[in-house]
């Protein structure tokens, strides 16, 4: 899976900036004034400041430290310490592919066909203090609602699930409660039996993978 879901699309509004990680790689997510989401390397090339602490201005992301502004292509467009200077084209950030599909924001480090789109209703993002057991999104019916669950491997010890409903949720409160119970069970199981849990969830992941393929 070349694309990784990093957030519910609804959680990154116009002008929002947020930090996230895929496999430990730090990423600055932001949405410009036109609504387009972007994923940049989370490091200003000037003095290394995390751009996820920065602020969006129109169609540019500005670094918190010195206000350097970068356009959607990652190119530096303004250096406030030198207002009359046109920044050279060589000052360009590393950026990642970023798309919005099925109510989720997806990031990819390499070229790949975009993930499938579908009408979707935001449910929640769950953050787990355990590694991801699969990289493949899967579909599952929980509390009477058909869901798309997209895993995000954040670091060797942390992961997230980004969950959207593929039909209007029958009972939103019950759905959220069921998902939180699932997270707690996974974390508890991982705490008690780390080695066994890895095996079991690796298997669970592969069965989810199969069902996702069948469903898709």
């Amino acid at each position, binding site marked *: 899976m070349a694309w990784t879901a990093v957030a519910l699309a609804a959680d990154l509004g116009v002008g929002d900036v947020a930090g996230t990680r895929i496999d430990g790689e*730090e990423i600055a997510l932001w949405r410009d004034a036109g609504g387009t989401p972007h994923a940049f390397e*989370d*490091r200003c*090339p*000037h*003095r*290394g*400041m*995390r751009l996820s*602490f920065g602020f969006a201005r129109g169609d540019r992301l500005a*670094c*918190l*430290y*010195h*206000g350097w502004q970068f356009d959607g292509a990652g190119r530096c467009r303004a*250096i*406030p*310490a*030198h*207002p009359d*200077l046109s920044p050279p084209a060589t*000052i360009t950030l590393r950026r990642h592919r970023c798309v919005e599909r099925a109510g989720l924001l997806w990031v990819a480090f390499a070229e790949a066909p975009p993930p499938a789109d579908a009408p979707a209703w935001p449910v929640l993002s769950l953050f787990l203090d355990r590694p991801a057991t699969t990289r493949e999104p899967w579909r599952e019916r929980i509390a009477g609602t058909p869901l798309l669950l997209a895993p995000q491997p954040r670091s060797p010890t942390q992961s997230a699930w980004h969950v959207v409903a593929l039909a209007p949720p029958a009972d939103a409160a019950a759905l959220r409660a069921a998902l939180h119970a699932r997270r707690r069970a996974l974390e508890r199981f991982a705490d008690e039996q780390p080695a066994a849990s890895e095996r079991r969830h690796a298997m669970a992941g592969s069965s989810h993978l199969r069902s996702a393929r069948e469903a898709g």
Partner: protein
Amino acid sequence: MRTRDRVALDEWYAVASADELGPAPWPTRLLGEDITLARTPAGLAAHDAAGAPLPLRERYGLVFTTLGAPRGEIVEIAEAVEPDRRFVPCGWTLLRASGLRVVENFLDMAHFPYVHADILGAEPRTEVAPYRVEFRREADELWARGCRFWQPRAAATDTTGTMMEIDYRVPSPFVVMLYRVAPSQPHRRDCIALFIQPMEATLCRAVPLMWLADDISTHTAMLHFEQAIFLQDRVIVENQRPLALPLDPRAEIPTRADSSSVAYRRWLKEKGLRFGTAEWTGA
């Protein structure tokens, strides 16, 4: 483990405020090593992790020590002996950052309108005018002279904004100072010094000391002003990547406004300092 970086070892470091030491052992850390200080009936005492005694000096209300053999003395600050100066020790702050990044941040003016918005700088007056960098070879100090920046509220007394004039001074790798026109006594210069205690390569404590020409502000107002500024800077230095300071000129992209930073990195490289730099490999 104590660093083997001779350049870092052979310096004096502030490690405590004199008035916080009592008879009880007071443990802290310097350059990767646990050290212990105490004020005994015989006077101040300190020892390293192996129990060997360490040299001590008391100046500016701070206690200094070294793990090596410093060639120089603790920096002389002329303003410290002027009797009418307001002396404001601002307290220690722990920073999960390289002390060298902290020095560089102190030397930087271009961040004022963003990190200290509407205090030390404000948009749209963001320009950093050219200034002069001087290597003072005899004293082995680095200076940035003739710096000018628009500041809406440069000090606790300032309410109207001013084109501030500043000289910066780096007397040793982990000490940085500035002299600026005193907002309430324009014929005199305030002096602010930042002493840094490098605990690990990317962990330090820092204490700002101020000698101000200010008959107006309360001590508390001056203290609060500096502490607010310093906490804003902390957000920056704890979120730079890497946390350590790169000395390789290709690692980050400077502009003319960064002349003092470029000179500081070159000066550190000439000294051969590695502790707290991105080139440091762990010993």
